[in-house]
């Protein structure tokens, strides 16, 4: 726990954490200091002048809050006429050359200029001279579109490419009101995190080519999720909406702050992975390549499993812990073999030492925790002996299988439980659609052993069944939420020791003892 200091805001005593600047420290206690350029990930720049606050008896009496650390006994003035006037004046100056094209601006609804205008300005324009004209809809590369006229020159995007990606594609050229953010000629944005500048931009100057003109921000429902693009487990917001006569669709992923996992940002590939939640899905069940009602497909699958001697269950490292537990209970119940082998999602050398990982699955650590064998030898051996293969969304067949495996698959009875239409689902004897991770709640463990929970975000018009309920219909015994939680607590002492049944917002860091406990 950080040391606390007492200071006064508008004469009221407040207690805040030491070591922070006024903006961050007071935000925690619900006091807003308006600002454009400051961002906790990028530090204080002090150029927007929106966060100027008064310091009673202070020298100087007027300071930028972003550059002012909290101090015991500091007397901060936010509501004096002088400060209110400064905020109004700075807002007026921010807006005189702003196009105010909110009706066609994607940022509308989540724009600092709009919010602060309502809170701190609220006056008619006095600008009676022509505005400064600058570049519009400039393609900056990586799907980033820039509008120099909307820009407030806060330099967050510039600092992002310098401090975070260290690629430095962006800079501010020219002086005075001709200053603008731009690129070196012929050198567009070229990094794997570029779209973060869209979120960082406090106004509508940086927009995403992918998201532009698709949705108004205020129609979007925002749910907390975990990106399943790799084993980092970045925290995201899933922004989705069901338009009239349409299905519930995801329109974008945005990073969600978690200092224990991803900080403030996510990679562009993970951000764009929402498309896969909307597209290429397995829509209906099939028995022997003929469309079939779901119930019938499930019953047939159960009969075929029961009629088999040697069943191999192949589980995906993208499944949630709860799903893995349910599937494992199915294996126990049926005396089936269970394998978690999957190499299709490992892209060796793709990791960058920051957020992007080689392993493109979200819960491989979960497989290990539950002691589900992930070796190829075990899988191949089990497959040779098996007469039925039930594949729970495993990505094995995204890559070319071994000829021996391929040969075996032709003669084997196969059941695919799949979120997406894949080569395997197409050739499987029975194909059953399943809910994908934006459509169910669950827990995953990232590559650093952080256990994280995510809730259900999207509700499709015709929801695909969750994998746990499919497992139950196939004969699994461990499928009720309470029972699953109990099972999780048994293999994760840290969760058992936690006061609440809820996995904390920022995740639960599992220690070595967890692994040791499982092995013991």
């Amino acid at each position, binding site marked *: 726990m950080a040391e606390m200091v007492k200071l006064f805001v508008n004469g009221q005593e407040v207690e805040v954490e030491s070591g922070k600047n006024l903006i961050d420290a007071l935000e925690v206690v619900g006091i807003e200091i308006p600002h454009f350029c400051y961002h906790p990930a990028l530090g204080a720049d002090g150029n927007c002048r929106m966060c100027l606050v008064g310091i009673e008896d202070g020298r100087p009496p007027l300071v930028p809050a972003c550059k002012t650390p909290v101090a015991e006994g500091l007397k901060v003035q936010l509501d004096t006429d002088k400060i209110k006037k400064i905020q109004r004046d700075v807002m007026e100056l921010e807006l005189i*050359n702003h196009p105010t094209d909110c009706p066609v601006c994607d940022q509308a609804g989540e724009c600092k200029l709009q919010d602060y205008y309502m809170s701190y300005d609220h006056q008619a324009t006095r600008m*009676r001279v022509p505005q400064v004209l600058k570049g519009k809809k400039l393609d900056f590369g990586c799907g980033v579109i820039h509008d120099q006229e909307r820009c407030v020159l806060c330099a967050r995007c510039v600092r992002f490419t310098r401090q975070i990606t260290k690629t430095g594609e962006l800079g501010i050229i020219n*002086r*005075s*009101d001709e*200053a603008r953010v731009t690129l070196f000629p012929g050198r567009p944005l070229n990094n794997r995190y570029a779209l973060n500048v869209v979120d960082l931009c406090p106004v509508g100057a940086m927009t995403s080519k992918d998201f532009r003109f698709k949705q108004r921000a205020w129609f979007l429902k925002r749910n907390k999720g975990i990106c399943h693009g790799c084993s980092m487990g970045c925290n995201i917001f899933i922004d989705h909406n069901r338009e009239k006569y349409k299905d519930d669709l995801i329109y974008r992923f945005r990073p969600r702050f978690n200092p224990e996992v991803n900080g403030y940002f996510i990679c562009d590939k993970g951000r764009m992975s929402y498309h896969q939640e909307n597209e290429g899905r397995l829509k209906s069940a099939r028995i022997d390549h003929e469309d079939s009602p779901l119930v019938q497909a499930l019953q047939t699958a159960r009969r075929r499993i029961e009629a088999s001697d040697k069943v191999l269950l192949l589980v995906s490292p993208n499944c949630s812990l709860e799903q893995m537990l349910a599937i494992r209970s199915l294996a126990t119940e049926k005396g089936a073999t269970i394998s978690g082998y999957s190499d299709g999602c490992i892209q060796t050398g793709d990791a960058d030492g920051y957020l992007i990982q080689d392993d493109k699955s979200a819960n491989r650590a979960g497989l290990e925790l539950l002691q589900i064998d992930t070796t190829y030898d075990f899988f191949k051996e089990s497959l040779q002996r098996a007469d039925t293969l039930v594949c729970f969304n495993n990505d094995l067949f995204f890559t070319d299988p071994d000829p021996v495996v391929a040969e075996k698959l032709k003669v084997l009875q196969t059941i695919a439980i799949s979120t997406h239409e894949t080569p395997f689902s197409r050739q499987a004897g029975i194909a059953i659609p399943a809910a994908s991770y934006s459509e169910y709640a669950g827990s995953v463990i990232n590559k650093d052993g952080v256990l994280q929970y995510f809730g259900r975000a999207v509700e499709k018009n015709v929801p695909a069944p969750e994998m746990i309920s499919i497992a139950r219909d196939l004969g699994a015994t461990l499928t009720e939420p309470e029972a699953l939680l109990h099972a999780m607590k048994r293999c994760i002492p840290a969760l058992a020791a936690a006061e609440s049944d809820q996995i904390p917002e920022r995740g639960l860091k599992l220690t070595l003892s967890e692994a040791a406990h499982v092995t013991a």
Partner: protein
Amino acid sequence: MEVKILSAKFDIKDAHTLAVAKEHGAYATLDAVFAMEPAAVIDQVKNSGLRGRGGAGFPAGLKWSFLPKGLNKPVYLAVNSDESEPATFKDRYILTRDPHMLIEGIIICCYAIGCHTAYIYIRGEYTTQVKALQKAIDEAYAAGYLGDDVAGKGFQLDVTVHRGAGAYVCGEETALLESVEGRKGQPRSKPPFPAVSGLYGCPTIINNVQTIASLPFIMQNGAEAYKAYGTEKSPGTHLFGISGHVAKPGLYELPLGLPLMDVINKVAGGVWKERKLKAVIPGGSSTPVLTPEEAETTTLDYESMAAHKTMFGSGGIVVLDETVDMVQLVKNLIDFYHHESCGQCTPCREGLGWMLKIVKQLLRGEGTMADIDLLVELCDNIEMKTVCVLSAACTMPVRSYLNKFRHEFVAYASDRPQGIDMNQDKD
């Protein structure tokens, strides 16, 4: 009235060369200086009362004493030669006519503050000056006045000339440091002040050329000799650049404290063409303007200027005769500061452009009385809300013109009260 301290060698042929400069006493103080403790040198400069000649007038010796003690970091000296304030043309004379006086001053200062690397930041437009300066530095190196063993005293000192790229704002000391470090010249937020964390994060002293060039005289003749010139609080001499509508414009070295009108009339030959005086800009374009009445009681020192709600500034005196259109002048003034705004802070970046457009609109006869009031309000809204004082360097003088010559602005307003003619002040 003129004195010859800084300008002693200005009129001597080839005084910019080491040989001639030495004949006339250059580098003669070094023996005495190196015999002293550095702290004693600082004390002597403090006692002389020498104030920074860049414009702000901060006591030089006091500035040096702000350097943190016992820090395990190098100390840097940056000599500010980015002389860009309109109407200011004093440092350029030192650079071309007597560069060795500056180099000697740098040696004295560096010895006093324990600095072994000095930078001279010179504005990019000073092409003649940079050549003369570099030639003098090369000569000083060759003669052993710079380098590993300064004047055989076992003191190491390197001097590097850094050329600016033509930005007024780089005369602001932290923007100057940014520029030396190779970045876009934009002022830094203070604190930390450069004396604590300046160039490359190290303690740095930044002094104007004229300040540093004053050191050899002070060390040679003592603090009392320097204080014999000028007033008690503004001792010494200053290079005044007098321009505008006077009979004899030029650079004059004068002790501080002389009556402004005496200097204009007796030194600079008075207002030219027998015209009437309209106003005086006392110390460069960023200083608030003085009316003839105010000019009568003003003396050329920091205190009198402050008492007249203006500033001593850089010593660039501009005399304006009765033909000057103050609205045109203000347009030129804002045009300059708007063009030179680094664009970092919102109020300066957006506000100065807006003010310029309003004045231009007024000049076209399309402005209104409300626009004049808006100009005054914008001055208040912009000033002191920014990282540096560039915006204030524009709004302070502009406000003074709007207050003291408001009728000229009103005469341009399309909705001016009846009876006010647009050209009533002109012949």
